[in-house]
């Protein structure tokens, strides 16, 4: 436990709620941080009890990323906001081919938020961070008035080291390159939606939230700079990511519907609500644009890892001045895959 824990009564973790005093820098805040966050994340930096973490950095180029997490509901099948925050930030580093080093986490908590839930979230983050081997070395906590935050907002920042010679970038896709997808799509979005009010349906679908850095390390080992770029299709789904790539690289994308893995329950839930899996969020998948010659070897590598077991080659990059993302349907017909404007909403029509 944190040796700087203040004296006095412990938090009522079962029935207590977060109060404004927990954010005001005094004893109450020290107690909250100690009993909830330090207890869950426990590592040498947090134990040192400073406002910052210091560490040696290996030689090379650094990668840095930051993300905010505002998902609702906070707890969903397969995960929670905390786990998402850890994985999501690690993944952003991994998409540069980089090895994540350490991360920070800041919390904005709504007055009245149950301590039991905060504890649950913190524990989930601690577990995720230990499993990934990326420590949460520093953080911050603020409490805002009731109504000014949706329970809790989490922001994470992560730093990592890019392997020498690797320069993945969204503008590096070239005609002739091949598109690889690490696994099935739509799981996260469907899992979250199944818990939303007014949409409840029963499903065994779990969020696919996962840290991809180990899979990425294997891919980099196999193919190095034959990998042009990688991206994880989160909000907006695969459709948004492919359009981003097309526009950044000024190319066209052509994919095959038959090649895209979708779990039967995810497909069924999407049918029920009138959603297109291509627009549904994922939290444990990656898209890679790779040189054609390297595609087969990479697929073998990916499929050997649990997070890439269903990896598939889904399409290729072509020259296209309009930067269209086009899909050949299972029918042999053609359609454009566009960004969606705003969030995808269920439909009756």
């Amino acid at each position, binding site marked *: 436990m944190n040796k700087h824990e203040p004296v006095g009564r412990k938090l009522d973790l079962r029935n207590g709620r977060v109060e404004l005093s927990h954010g005001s820098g005094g004893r109450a805040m020290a107690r909250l941080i100690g009993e909830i966050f330090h207890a869950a994340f426990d590592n040498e930096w947090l134990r040192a009890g400073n406002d910052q973490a210091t560490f040696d950095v290996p030689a090379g180029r650094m990668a840095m990323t930051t993300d905010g997490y505002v998902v609702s509901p906070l707890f969903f099948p397969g995960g929670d906001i905390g786990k998402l925050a850890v994985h999501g930030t690690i993944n952003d580093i991994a998409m540069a081919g980089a090895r994540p080093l350490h991360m920070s986490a800041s919390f904005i908590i709504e007055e009245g938020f149950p301590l039991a839930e905060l504890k649950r979230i913190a524990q989930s983050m601690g577990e995720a961070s230990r499993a990934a081997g990326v420590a949460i070395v520093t953080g911050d906590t603020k409490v805002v008035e009731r109504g000014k935050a949706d329970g809790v907002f989490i922001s994470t920042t992560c730093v990592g080291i890019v392997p020498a010679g690797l320069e993945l970038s969204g503008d590096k896709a070239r005609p002739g390159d091949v598109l690889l997808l690490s696994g099935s799509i739509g799981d996260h979005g469907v899992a979250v939606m199944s818990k939303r009010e007014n949409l409840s*349906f*029963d*499903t*065994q*679908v779990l969020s696919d939230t996962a840290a991809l850095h180990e899979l990425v390390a294997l891919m980099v080992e196999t193919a190095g700079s034959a990998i042009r770029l990688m991206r994880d299709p989160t909000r907006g789904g695969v459709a948004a990511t492919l359009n981003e790539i097309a526009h950044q690289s000024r190319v066209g994308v052509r994919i095959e519907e038959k090649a895209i893995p979708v779990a*039967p*329950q995810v*497909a*069924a*839930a999407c*049918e*029920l609500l*009138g959603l297109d899996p291509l627009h549904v969020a994922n939290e444990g998948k990656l898209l890679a644009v790779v040189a054609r010659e390297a595609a087969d070897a990479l697929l073998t590598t990916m499929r050997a890892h649990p997070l890439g077991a269903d990896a598939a080659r889904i399409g290729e990059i072509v020259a296209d001045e309009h930067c269209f993302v086009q899909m050949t349907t299972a029918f042999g017909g053609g359609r454009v895959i566009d960004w969606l404007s705003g969030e995808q909403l269920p*439909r*009756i*029509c």
Partner: protein
Amino acid sequence: MCLAIPARVEELLPDQMARVSVDGVGKIVSVALVDDLTIGDYVVLHVGYALAKIDEEEAMTTLALLREAAELGAQP
């Protein structure tokens, strides 16, 4: 018009409700508009209501007609 999907009746519930499923995704819906349902029947589901029972025999006929049309089309 409108998004409707065939769903399998898994359980009949009181007040003219039922639990149906589409490939393992379950939902509680109203079956007030369709009579004589048994478990295993398929219904057309729209905005939380079953609108019709799917006639298995007619479905088979339709599929047979489709295959027939396809065979003719496949001939050189």
